[in-house]
Every structure is written in structure tokens, then in C-alpha cells.
């Protein structure tokens, strides 16, 4: 199965007036406005769903940077999506403590449940599933991140409940 696009963002790529004000505020916090690039890219991803080349170009304009500079940043970090992602992102930790606590079985379980491999999105655009390095909640292994929150001490049953609630 290949990554399946979520519903595309409609309309032109542009922040609202309030968002532009927020961008300017963020830029003013740093001795050099470029310091605000990561926070503004987070804002862009929240707004446009993912960071496409067009979004990169738009953000570059707000910083008077070349799009190539922004591209280099976007591709360096794991949290910026360059292709459409699902409405929810489920990131299961596969590092040492989680591995010792059964992360491979949890990952297998999520694969079966969703019918996709890590790195893919369900056909209905509901969930993007990734396996990731240590999220630094190893005391509650195995664990995963679901959008903004950490879900700890996972069991297959708990994973089922969590996935079920994601709409």
C-alpha cells in the first residue's frame, strides 16, 4: 500500500492576517528573525496539513530566505511532513527500553490493525503510522505518541481502544 493523500488543503497557500501577525511576533523574539523558522514551519504544517514545496516557498518569502534554505531545514527534521499525512499521526517508539518491553509486538499489532506498514497512511486518510526513536518516556514502555499526547504502558488491547477513538 502506498501513502494515501489526506483531503488536500483547499484554497491558496496563505496565512490569515492574525497568523501573519503571529509570524511577525515570533520573528521579533529572536535576535535574528530566522530563529523563528522552526516555530513558523510548525504553524504552517498545522495550517496547511503538511509542508509542500509551495508551502516552503511561501514561508521562505516571509523570511526573505531562498526556498532552498527552507527546504534544507524541512528535510532535516522528522516532524515536518513533506507529503500529505493522515488526520492523526501514531508514532510507536522502537528504541531500547520500549523494545525490551515488547515494542516489536506492538508495532506488529498496529500493522495488522491498520493494514499498513510504518511510513504509510490508511486508505481513508485517517491515520499515518510511523515507528520512531526514543520519545523519552521509557519508564512507561512500550509507549507511543498519538498526535500531541503520549500514550504509555501499551498493551494490544489499549492500542485497539486508542486507535478506535481516532476519527
Amino acid at each position, binding site marked *: 500500500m502506498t501513502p494515501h493523500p489526506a483531503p488536500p488543503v483547499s484554497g491558496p497557500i496563505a496565512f490569515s492576517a492574525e497568523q501573519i501577525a503571529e509570524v511577525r511576533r515570533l520573528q521579533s523574539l529572536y*535576535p535574528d528573525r530566522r530563529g523563528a523558522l*522552526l516555530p513558523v514551519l510548525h504553524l504552517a504544517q498545522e495550517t496547511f496539513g503538511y509542508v509542500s514545496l509551495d508551502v516552503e516557498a511561501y514561508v521562505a518569502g516571509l523570511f526573505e530566505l531562498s526556498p532552498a534554505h527552507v527546504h534544507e531545514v524541512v528535510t532535516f527534521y522528522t516532524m515536518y511532513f513533506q507529503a500529505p499525512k493522515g488526520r492523526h499521526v501514531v508514532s510507536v517508539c522502537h528504541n*531500547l*527500553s520500549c*523494545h525490551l518491553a515488547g515494542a516489536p509486538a506492538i508495532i506488529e499489532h498496529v500493522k495488522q490493525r491498520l493494514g499498513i506498514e*510504518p511510513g504509510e497512511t490508511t486508505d481513508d486518510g485517517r491515520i499515518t503510522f510511523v515507528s520512531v526513536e526514543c520519545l*523519552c*518516556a521509557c*519508564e512507561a514502555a512500550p509507549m507511543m505518541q498519538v498526535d*500531541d499526547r503520549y500514550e504509555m504502558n501499551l498493551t494490544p488491547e489499549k492500542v485497539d481502544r486508542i486507535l478506535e477513538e481516532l476519527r
Partner: protein
Amino acid sequence: MSEKILSRNFDRANASTLAGYRESGGYTAWDTARTMEPAALVDLVKKSNLRGLGGAGFPTGMKWSFIPKDHAGPVYLVVNADEGEPGTFKDRYILERDPHALIEGMVIAARAIRCKLGFVYIRGEYVQPWRIFSGAVREAREAGLLGEHFDIVVHRGAGAYICGEETGLISSLEGKKGWPKVKPPFPAIKGAFGMPTIVNNVETLACVPHIVNRGAEWFAALGSKTQGGTRLYSVSGRVKRPAVYEAPVSVTLRQLIYDYAGGVSHTGKLKAVVPGGSSAPLLTADQIDVTMDVDGCRNAGTMIGSAGIVVFDESVSIPDALMVVARFYAHESCGQCTPCRESTGWIYKMCKRIVDGKGRKDDLDTILDVAKRGAGTTICAFYDGAIGPYISYIEKFRAEFEELIHRGGPEMAPQTPQRSARPGEAGTHLGHA
């Protein structure tokens, strides 16, 4: 068990609010510190023997004293809250449960180094800690604790372990990819935005108010001869009670595993321990009487690093564990230095084929050779950190690797998944490849 100092607020419901923090004696150290000369504050911290708790263990007061005295422009304080070392989770507790302890430590440190602007770089995945900490900063600003004299910008990362390395962190804070820089110049001379900068870990700064309140001698006496204080040990893996434990820096690994964390789980028999985050060389079961201070661990041939302890019981496969650790380093190398970029990838592939039962007779010597050759040749300490596990796992458990290579066939331990991939690059998430 010793007095709780850094963790004293972790179980108090309202400690993350300003009022709750004040109830526990919060901001009284700032009341004292604001009347002290900067040089006196630096001296106090020097005398306390506080050493950095982020990984390198550098003496904090000495680091502060490196800011050039004749510098006319701005000086920055950057807090490393990019917690990412596998096995470490203690800074998350401070950010969520005692955020004002960090803010108070920052305000005092800022006075010591004559700094008016501080940044807190929080790893991107820590959304909840970021929200709580940002709320605490707003409260402190409204109460006049932050403002003209010193203010804090809370910054979010975007997922990259290497941004925990201080110069990588600075690059990232400047809005660039998180590439570490050649040192010297050290950040204290030329750091964030080209200005003298002190980078300190969250927990390091959370110690500072206690030092001001109770004195350098008191703090120094809590620890060993060369390192003062208590610290937060993150204990996970095969123990009965995985958690954050506060203990004096002179505590032994044995005490942490058995007295604090309730002993070994699963088979109940200890096999090996990662003592200081995944980059720290592995210790065997007969080495756990080591004291967990910077020097104690160094003398035992390992490092305390971030004090992230991962316990392996008898049933843990060492080759399988190394494969997981090697996958991490292959994924997280920033790719600037050839030895690091290439070796981390090769070594992961060799570890993977050994675990898959396709190991070759000379793989172990090849890994050791490749690992040792690159030592000390790279821009940052990431690669030296990666070699720690490569060499120690193989040298200390060579027979287990050889057995697996000789026997062939897939390892009995559960198979681990493919490395992670993002949409649009499914299956090719080799980072730098």
C-alpha cells in the same frame, strides 16, 4: 533514601503553578541572588561542585566564568531541553511538574552571566511539557519575575536527536538544520547568533536555587569529592519499578537497581546495564558497585552521561539490543562527517544481518575495526557516543555474537520492525543515505 531536593515537587498537584511553587519556598533563592554580585554567584556555583547533568559533566561555575568579561554586546543563556538520549526522561518531569524551578534557576544564572535573554529549546515531541512550561513562563512574566531585566523565549524543536548536542542545538535555534559546529570557538565565546552563550541542561539549572538557598558547602557535601549534589536517575528496562529516582551522585548502580527500582524483573537475574543513556558503554553484572558520579563511571570505563539507566536481565539478547541501538545511531547521524555518516550505516547493517542469522565470520572484527578507526576524528561527540555501545557490547559479550553467527538462522528474540519511514519516503528512512 535521601532527602528529595530536585524531585520534591514532582508529586504535588499544584506545584507547576506559581502559587504552588511559592508554597514550597519558590523564588526565595532569587530574592537572595538579586542582591548578590554576578561574580559572587559564579563563585558560589563553582564551590558547590555542580557539574552539568546533560551529558558531558562539565563544571557549571567554571563554564559560566568563560563568558568574556570585556564583551559589550548581548550574552545568551540557552537551556537544553531537547532531551533525546535513549533511556533518559528526567527533564520531562521538571518541565511538567516543576517548571518554575527551571525558571528560577535561569533567572539566577542570567544574573551570574549578565544575560538579558534566555532561550529554552524543548524537543518538538514534548508538546505537553512545552505547553505547561510556556504557561509557567507567562505566569512568571505577569508576576514581574521576568521582564526588562531578563526574559525567556520558549522554542520548539522539530525532531532530531543531534539538536541535543550544544552546537547543533544552537544551529537549530538559529533556524538552520541542526548541524554541530567545530569547537573551538566554544559557545561561551561565540554561540547563539554569534554571541557568547551558556548552554545548560534543564536539571543543571534546577539545582541552582537550592545552592543559593542552602549554600555551596551543603550542596558539595551531598555528593562525591569532585561532584556535588543529588541528581535524577532515569531507570528503565528490565526492572520492577521503572521511574525517575533522585539520589546523591555517589549512589551505586547496585543501590539504584535493587533499593530504588525494586530489583531485576523477568528472569530476575541481571545480565548487563546501560548506565548513562544509550551512548554509555555497557557494564556487566559484576560491575554494578560503581558509584554513579562522573568520575566513578569514568574509572569504570563508561560514562554517567545523562544518567539514563537501562537494565538487561539474563533473557535479553545482547546482539538484538545492539541492533536496536545501532539503528538509532544510523538514523540520527547528521551526516556531516564521513566516518560517522558511513560507519553508523554499515555497522547497523552488519548488526542487523547478525541478528537475522546471516552474520559472517569476520563481521565482529570489521565492526570493531570500523568503530575504533573513527574515534576522535569527528566534529562532535555523537560518533564517540555511538562507538561506546558498538565496542562494549561486542567485547563484553563476544561469545553470544559468535554463537549467533555460527548457528545462523533467525534469532529467537522477537524480530524488530523496519526502520521508520515518513510518508513520501516509505522504506528509505536512512536519514542521510
